[in-house]
């Protein structure tokens, strides 16, 4: 298959990849600088900033909290998003355009506006459950990503294979498990990854809804930058990059979603 790609296209892809990846290298380099403040190019070499971040109880707490929050949000987004995407693709519902528009609206409306609106709503309801508020807020934002990705997969499902399986006597459950699932799995996994990353990286919604006990990583990073702009911030950023890379590799290993399948 690679033989079909022209050398010009290959060069373009590598240049594009370099442009995308190069900015990620900068914090990694800055994180090993042996200076009390961030500098580029780095001066000296030390790993003490990684030690500072990894042993800091506050950093650990916020990281674990963000993992928990993003995990719950991903799960809920998939539980709500997959049936919703399937329904929107497979059935002719009245007001379908309106439903889709409403679901996708968080992609258009500025997140900071959604955040303040949610805070106002929760205050009017008298809610003090911060974690639940964060889960709802993040789910509102993550759901469009899941629905967009999963509905794309459902559109591409070959319906004749389902018909063939039914004719051959397969039950609806078997058709869903053996015929539909393998075709939509990459889309669902991609939607899940998107949801996880969007939730893990979210700042504008969390800024309004979080509190001292429920404090996600992006808020912690912002707070660290305000406290002191030392290389521990770069170390934290580098760790987040490594974590995202590890996540993609683990999912690739576990689910076998190759890049080609995700693109297709």
């Amino acid at each position, binding site marked *: 298959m690679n033989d079909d790609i022209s050398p010009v296209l290959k060069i373009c892809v590598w240049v594009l990849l370099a442009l995308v990846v190069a900015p990620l290298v900068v914090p990694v380099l800055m994180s090993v600088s042996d200076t*009390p*403040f*961030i*500098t*580029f190019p780095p001066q000296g070499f030390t790993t003490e900033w990684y030690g500072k971040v990894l042993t800091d109880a506050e950093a650990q707490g916020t990281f674990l909290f963000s993992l928990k929050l993003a995990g719950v949000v991903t799960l809920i987004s998939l539980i709500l998003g997959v049936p919703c995407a399937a329904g929107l693709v497979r059935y002719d519902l009245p007001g379908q355009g309106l439903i889709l528009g409403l679901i996708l609206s968080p992609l258009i409306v500025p997140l900071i506006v959604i955040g*303040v609106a949610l*805070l*106002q709503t929760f*205050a*009017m309801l*008298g809610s*003090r459950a911060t974690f639940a508020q964060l889960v709802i807020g993040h789910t509102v934002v993550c759901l469009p990503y899941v629905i967009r990705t999963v509905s794309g997969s459902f559109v591409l499902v070959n319906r004749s294979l389902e018909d063939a399986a039914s004719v051959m006597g397969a039950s609806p459950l078997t058709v869903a498990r053996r015929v539909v699932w393998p075709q939509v799995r990459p889309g669902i996994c991609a939607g899940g990854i998107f949801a996880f990353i969007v939730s893990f990286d979210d700042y504008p919604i969390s*800024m*309004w809804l*979080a*509190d*001292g*006990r429920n*404090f996600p990583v992006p*808020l912690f990073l*912002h*707070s660290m*930058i*305000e*406290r*002191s*702009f*030392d290389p521990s911030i770069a170390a934290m950023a580098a760790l987040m990059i490594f974590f995202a890379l590890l996540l993609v590799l683990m999912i690739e290993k576990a689910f076998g979603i190759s890049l080609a399948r995700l693109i297709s």
Partner: protein
Amino acid sequence: MTLLSRRRFAALSLSTLAAPMILSKGAWAQGKEIQIGIWGGSQGEFVRKNIIPQFEADFGCTVIAEEGFTLANVGKMQATKANPKFSVMFIDDVAIPTCRAEGLIEELPVVDMPAAAHLMPRFAYDGWGTGVAISVAGLFHNTSIEAPKTYAELWGDAYRGKLKLVSPKNTPSVFFLIVAAAVKSGKPFAEAQYLIDDSFDQVEALKPNIMNLFDNGPQAANEVAQGQADIGLMELSKYVYPYAAKGAPITMAFPAEGSFGGNNCQVLVKGGPNRDLAVAFMNRMLEAQVQKSFSEFALTAPPVSGIAFEEPTLKYIAYPETQMDSRGLFNPDWNFINTRRSAWTERMNGIFAV
């Protein structure tokens, strides 16, 4: 008739004797909870890690702190006005008139705040808030650069493309507008602040000297320390001096025209939960011992008088009150400025957008 046993009598006597001590430790606050909005940065860190745990231990209560900044904290009060979630909010003095006008805050019960007795009148805000930490706003520059003696020098060709200017969305941008008006009119800040509308040609004249705009003080201080720009204007000392104290090649300069006070304040949210506990917390923030350690950590001056500091701290703060006066620490007329600020922000955006 009920007879008391000796053991029961002894227990009752002991509890009677112990009651004042328990009450004085804040027994009335046992189990109560308040949510407060604080700042981020080193100030927020100190409040969360030092002041709150001690306060919780003394009063047997829970204080949940949410880090933010003035605009966000005011936004949170506005969004939760119908059913307040916060009891105490930390904001800059610039926002107090707005919060007061919108009915977001209430007048402080000063009689219940004994520590407020030492509050400097200039940080009392007519009883609608108190100062908590006072920074000085001015220029910050790389130590290899000789700082200008006057603000007017910044308009010279020697600084072409070498200055970092604070973003219009940050409070110190108002200080810059006042400086521009003062340079144009030759009048002191107190008069120049009312001439800003006619001074945007002076603002525009500085454009060739501006390398870029910044909205994050610590980041800008870091860039100047690295030599990416010669001078940054304007910023609060609390964002710059922590770097200087760490040995970074950066310091602040306060040109002859004067400098500005960056006043971090606390306000009592109107109708907020557990008002009595909120007032006790605000009082704690003003206590001398708290203010001393807070100031030494964040390198800001206390708003209360009578605190003794060692020389290393005094080097970075404008304290005592006589020092604030001698440095010409100017506090703008926020009532006048707030009504015009959005229009000024648009004009500044128009000048520096491209």
